[in-house]
């Protein structure tokens, strides 16, 4: 919908603006396909003492007919889906609203952004942050357990991978915009709450790299799961370092 007759063009950009949305579609699309396949596969998620992050915490109620990963993954899945950074990424690349800056996209006259159902539900992001934080506690527990080889302390490549993975996931959570708000951003008078001010400053400095943490933790969780699957299927053997 052009403002006027002479401003009726899609874009005048001469640079390669298509590259970024295409790369995002490929990477995010591959992640969704891989994670869905692994969540539904319902095997090769345990290679003692390592447990795949897709299946943690491992709960396996008898009444549940399909993969137990589904009981867990909604929390980190919706946490990522409603993340402010991923929203930007998929609104641009999948929805084309807009595909790149100063490029007319697929927005319609009836555009209402996140002000109406269903996208108004993006406002629930902080609740998925709470849910994903509970899962994160279990992932830390798994990382500690990854140093326990039949009751003895040991270090395998998998132990290090699990620690790295949970570290990256923690950085992603600690750099979350909702966390930054809840920890102190909501205050108007910082000087009366010095502790929250300090925490807010910490969260703010992590938040500047939220996009980076979003991507590296995404790769981290996939590679961790892949490593455990490869060990569990016997394709590779976990190397013991200690």
């Amino acid at each position, binding site marked *: 919908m052009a403002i006027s007759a002479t401003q009726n063009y899609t874009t005048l950009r001469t640079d390669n603006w298509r590259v970024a949305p295409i790369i995002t579609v490929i990477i995010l699309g591959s992640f969704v396909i891989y994670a869905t396949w692994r969540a539904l596969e319902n095997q090769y998620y345990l290679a003692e003492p390592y447990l795949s992050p897709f299946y943690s915490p491992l709960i396996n109620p008898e009444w549940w007919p399909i993969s137990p990963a589904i009981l867990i993954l909604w929390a980190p899945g919706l946490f990522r889906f409603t993340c402010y950074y991923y929203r930007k990424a998929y609104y641009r690349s999948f929805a084309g609203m807009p595909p790149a800056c100063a490029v007319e996209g697929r927005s319609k006259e009836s555009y209402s952004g996140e002000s109406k159902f269903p996208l108004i539900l993006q406002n629930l992001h902080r609740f998925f942050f709470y849910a994903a934080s509970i899962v994160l506690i279990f992932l830390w527990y798994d990382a500690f357990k990854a140093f326990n080889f039949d009751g003895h302390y040991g270090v395998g490549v998998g132990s290090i991978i699990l620690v790295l993975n949970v570290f990256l996931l923690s950085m992603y959570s600690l750099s979350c915009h909702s966390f930054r708000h*809840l920890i102190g951003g909501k205050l*108007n008078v*910082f000087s009366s709450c010095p502790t929250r001010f300090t925490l807010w400053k910490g969260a703010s400095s992590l938040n500047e790299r939220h996009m980076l943490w979003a991507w590296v933790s995404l790769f981290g969780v996939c590679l961790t799961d892949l490593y455990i699957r490869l060990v569990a299927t016997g394709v590779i053997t976990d190397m013991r370092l200690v």
Partner: protein
Amino acid sequence: MAEAVLRVFRGDSENGETKDYKVPVEEGMVVLDALLYIQANYDGDLAVRWNCKAAKCGSCSTEINGIPKLSCKTRMDSLPRDEPITVYPIKAFPVIKDLVTDVKWNYQKQKEIPPFTPPEDEEMIMYQDDVERSQEFRKCIECFLCQNVCHILRDNNAKESFFGPRYLIKIAELDMHPLDTVDRSELLRNEAGVGFCNITKCCTEVCPENIRITDNAIIPLKERVVDKYFDPINWILSKLKED
């Protein structure tokens, strides 16, 4: 001497076309220099709005090779010269003539925001920690490049429903001020339409003052709206505090 071809829009909202001009390129030259060269040497009636030539008055916003920029801050040597360099008026506002657009809608929106309202008869010591956050937003030079690039105003022309990033940072500046007493959440959610923003960050990308519009103003405002309208836990806690 090196030369560049500028392809400049000439016309208004109803009729217009581009015209090519050859301009000699000198060291340190910016696009505004090239436009002023055209004015001085070819077409004296080329309409260009500018004032400071120092990226501080916010007058010279244009679209250079399709990207919203200040023409006084865009060096000629940063642009490829194998193709003509296009210079267009900003797209989200109606063209008055050539590169000059009518941006008065912005000032009308500004008037709809309740101004800073400190408490009466109360003195308070202001600490730097408390005002620092709002100070980032005060760097705004009102170039309206963010308003122009925002797809909600640019492609959807939703000027009835959305104030645009420039006025969301204005609301953030006031709302985060430790002495301000006005609750603007109703305005934010309804008239200002913070929910329309889909945080795609183009405003942040084009801001010549490098204000982190989306991360530091819009997302925190969205979170404040969540506090008030979508978070029952927060609601109960605040009621308990009041009692």
